[in-house]
């Protein structure tokens, strides 16, 4: 008997079709981390929608959560599709997957605006510094000075996705590495539970085009230059009756930060050096990310968190029922209503 989760589903039930990406591609690891996270959290697959743009990364939703609806949209336009879907069905859990080209170049506009609107949705950028699918052109996140076989040295400054996200007003911004499964899964769990837009900038090496010695997004470079902000642990929501009192003071004493998600689940950020990091301080977040960038380090962890931001649904003042569940009785006003309008306009 295969192991099951609390929904009686096996891990297999969370898998997708076999991946057609290159063996060793960071994107495959992230797909597996999504599978494990959804399984561990016992998420009902039918409540999830998978969204993506175009690219190797954007192909990957076919390779996880086969029982969830997927929408492989246009290059750079996944955010708008997600916005529309979530606007009309707020009961869904949206997981968006994009690439650094998909988000950092062609999709920069939609990326910025989906953050402004704080659409409840997980937005993963599988960041490899290149356009994998079109064979290795520099992307906007490629660091200055990194060479490419056919395209020479990149001489433009890199777009820092996490920094763009913090500045752009995302209410949850994290960075991780496809080779750090525990951290990715903890951050992903928190992102899924976040009521708002959660950006996960995950460095995800491209073994075909950007895993060279001179690349700052190769497996070896990233491993050697990780700057882990804190150890992230996700503590799922435990129903009240069994709730083990978490003594917040203990955490404080140990310099740990406790972040509560809107459904009651928690994220524990454990200190890795003498200072603890408060992710709700935007100013500090920007400073830390900028400092890491200057020293060519890859800062990972929950960089920024703003729990109380109003979501798209709040701002649009939407009813609690998902709009798609409304029937004709609500959607179509009565004949009397039309007659009244007509009457008012007649002389």
């Amino acid at each position, binding site marked *: 008997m295969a192991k099951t989760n609390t929904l009686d589903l096996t891990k297999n039930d969370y898998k997708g*079709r076999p991946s057609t990406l290159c063996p060793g591609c960071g994107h495959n690891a992230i797909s597996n981390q999504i599978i494990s996270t959804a399984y561990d959290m016992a998420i*009902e*697959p*039918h*409540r999830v*929608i998978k969204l993506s743009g175009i690219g190797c990364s954007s192909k990957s*939703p*076919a390779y996880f959560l*086969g*029982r*969830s*609806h*997927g*929408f*492989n*949209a*246009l290059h750079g*336009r996944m*955010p*708008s*599709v*997600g*916005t*529309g*879907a*979530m*606007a*009309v*069905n707020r009961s*869904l859990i949206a997981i968006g997957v994009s690439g650094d080209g998909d988000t950092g170049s062609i999709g920069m*506009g*939609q990326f*910025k*605006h989906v953050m402004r*609107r704080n659409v409840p949705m997980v937005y993963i950028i599988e960041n490899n510094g290149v356009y994998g699918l079109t064979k290795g052109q520099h992307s906007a996140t490629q660091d200055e000075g990194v060479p490419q076989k056919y395209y020479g040295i990149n001489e433009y400054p890199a777009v820092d996705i996490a920094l763009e996200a913090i500045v752009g007003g995302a209410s949850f911004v994290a960075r991780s590495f496809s080779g750090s499964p525990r951290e990715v899964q903890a951050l992903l769990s928190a992102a899924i539970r976040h009521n708002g837009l959660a950006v996960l900038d995950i460095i995800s090496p491209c073994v075909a085009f950007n895993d060279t010695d001179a690349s700052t997004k190769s497996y070896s470079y990233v491993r050697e230059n990780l700057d882990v902000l804190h150890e992230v642990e996700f503590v799922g929501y435990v129903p009240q009756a069994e709730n083990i009192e978490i003594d917040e003071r203990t955490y404080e004493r140990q310099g740990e930060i406790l972040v509560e998600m809107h459904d009651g689940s928690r994220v524990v950020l454990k200190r890795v050096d003498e200072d603890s990091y408060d992710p709700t301080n935007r100013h500090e977040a920007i400073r830390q990310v900028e400092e890491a960038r200057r020293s060519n380090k890859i800062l990972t962890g929950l960089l920024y968190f703003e729990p109380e931001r109003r979501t*798209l649904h709040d701002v*649009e*003042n*939407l*009813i*609690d*029922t998902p*709009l*798609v569940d*409304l029937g*004709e009785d*609500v*959607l*179509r*006003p009565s*004949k009397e*209503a*039309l*007659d009244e*309008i*007509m*009457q008012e*306009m*007649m*002389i």
Partner: protein
Amino acid sequence: MADVLQAPEQAVGDETIVNDFQIIVATVNGTGSQTSNSLVIRSLFRMGIPVNGKNIFPSNIKGLQTWYTIRVSKDGYVARKEENQVLVAMNKSTIIEDIKQLPAGGVCLYDSGIRYEPTRDDILTYAMPVDDIMDQTDVKRSLRERVRNMVYVGALASLIGIELAEIEASLNAEFPGKQKVVDLNMSVIKLGHAYAEENYDRPSPFRVERMDETKGKLLMEGNAAAALGATFGGVQMLSWYPITPSSSVADNAMKYLSKFRIDKETGKASYAIIQAEDELAAIGMVLGAGWAGARAMTATSGPGISLMSEFAGMAYFAEIPSVIWNIQRVGPSTGLPTRTSQGDLLASYMLGHGDTQHICLLPANLKEAFEFGWRAFDIAERFQTLVFVLSDLDLGMNLWMTEPFDYPDEPMDRGKVLNAEQLNEHIKEYKRWGRYHDVDGDGIGYRALPGTPHPQAAYFTRGTGHDEWAVYSENSDVWVENLTRLTNKIAGSRDKLPQPIVETVDAADFGVIAFGTVDPAVVEARDRLAAHDKTFDYMRVRALPLSPAVREFIEAHDTVYVVENNFDGQLAKIIIMDYPELATRLKSIAYLDGLPFTAKFIVDSIMEHE
């Protein structure tokens, strides 16, 4: 006031022309002339006289010239006329040209403060010292600019016979509950009126008289009718990016939806209207919402259509119900952004790369704007595809008379959607469910929406090649099968879309095919041609792909004129694509100069051939 009347005797015939002329008001943009013009129209309408107004304005907020034509027609014609018989000249920078355009015998009511004396002796001129008249009022300086146009409303009313009581009633309707505003405007109107009564001793040959032709009708703009239609179509999500002449679709949707679709108990909305960052995002949101099972639409114009191209192709190929209102203006490019056109027919019909075809609905009047407003959703969900509604600036932004709208005569058609239970039944019957599996032979599969609690409900939506099970495929046979099914699906809509309206006469000399807002000009041309002993059968097309009736109509005539407001004869081209063997019977009357079509142009064009 010696300059009141300078026209010589012979300029004006003895007869008075009643309820059959066109007024043109020349003003400066941003001076509140919209209110004064709409006041004149509404007052004429209240007097029971058929009337139509057309705003001819530049792409500018303040300071440039703008014209407004008001046609009164005892016969009920609402097309633009080429000639204006009465000029209200309020704009210094255009008065010379404006006066030149008047026909002999025309009337010119002008602001004498402009310090330009009309010199033509074959027209009647009436001076209004607008500033002097304003000096008699106690209107604050800061408000003067906004109400000075009311002087001409009063003077014009006196000159042509508009009843002051109806002007006041119209003002009350325009500013409900704002007695101060009404009084202020009315005081200026009365001064203008009094001035004219006192000083104009030569009567205008053009006059209006009360009729009884507008009872039970109302005046509305096409974009408001569209929004009201969408409201009664149960729209759930509207995303848009502002662009003239489409913005007022969204504005009106806000107005109507906030009236009807706010939950009484919670005060919350059962719809979302989202102003997007651009048209790419607007249509992306529409597709996301349509895919999730909602009725979603956007409204835009030419440049927006261009940006929506990639998503439009995807909507066709991935079969996502969605609605785009294209309120057409003149392109290519930014073109003439505030002028009307039917130039996006081909572009909309085939928007997207590859072999793409979209259903297009072609409203010609307010009733159709309303009806297609709700019906577009039924069609989009029935055929699981993108539906365009092609209106234009003329219909969308001008005031038209209409009978009240009919309440939808059918319940909403949500198309083929399976819930979890129905999905089980479906699987029992057909062994397996596939999103694009054509079990009914009409090319339309069944949808299972995101969120459906069933382990087999999920499928993957993509713009890349896929088979009937929605699985990625690059197989050539699969591709051909899929595209064939899509072609057949759209072809299957031909006789299910709004069918052409055909009006026939005995022994017609030829046929005429048109669509959309050239309709009023065709109707008027038909009567005028009858005076030349020429009669025609008229078919007004209301949807693409073309109805099979189009072929029959052309086959029944040796000559068919295809009349349209664009340069390339786009409808004619579509007909020829469908029926190349009938091409020699067609004659294209295609013209676009930024102005609504006139009957005269159609008559002249046809008479060149006949």
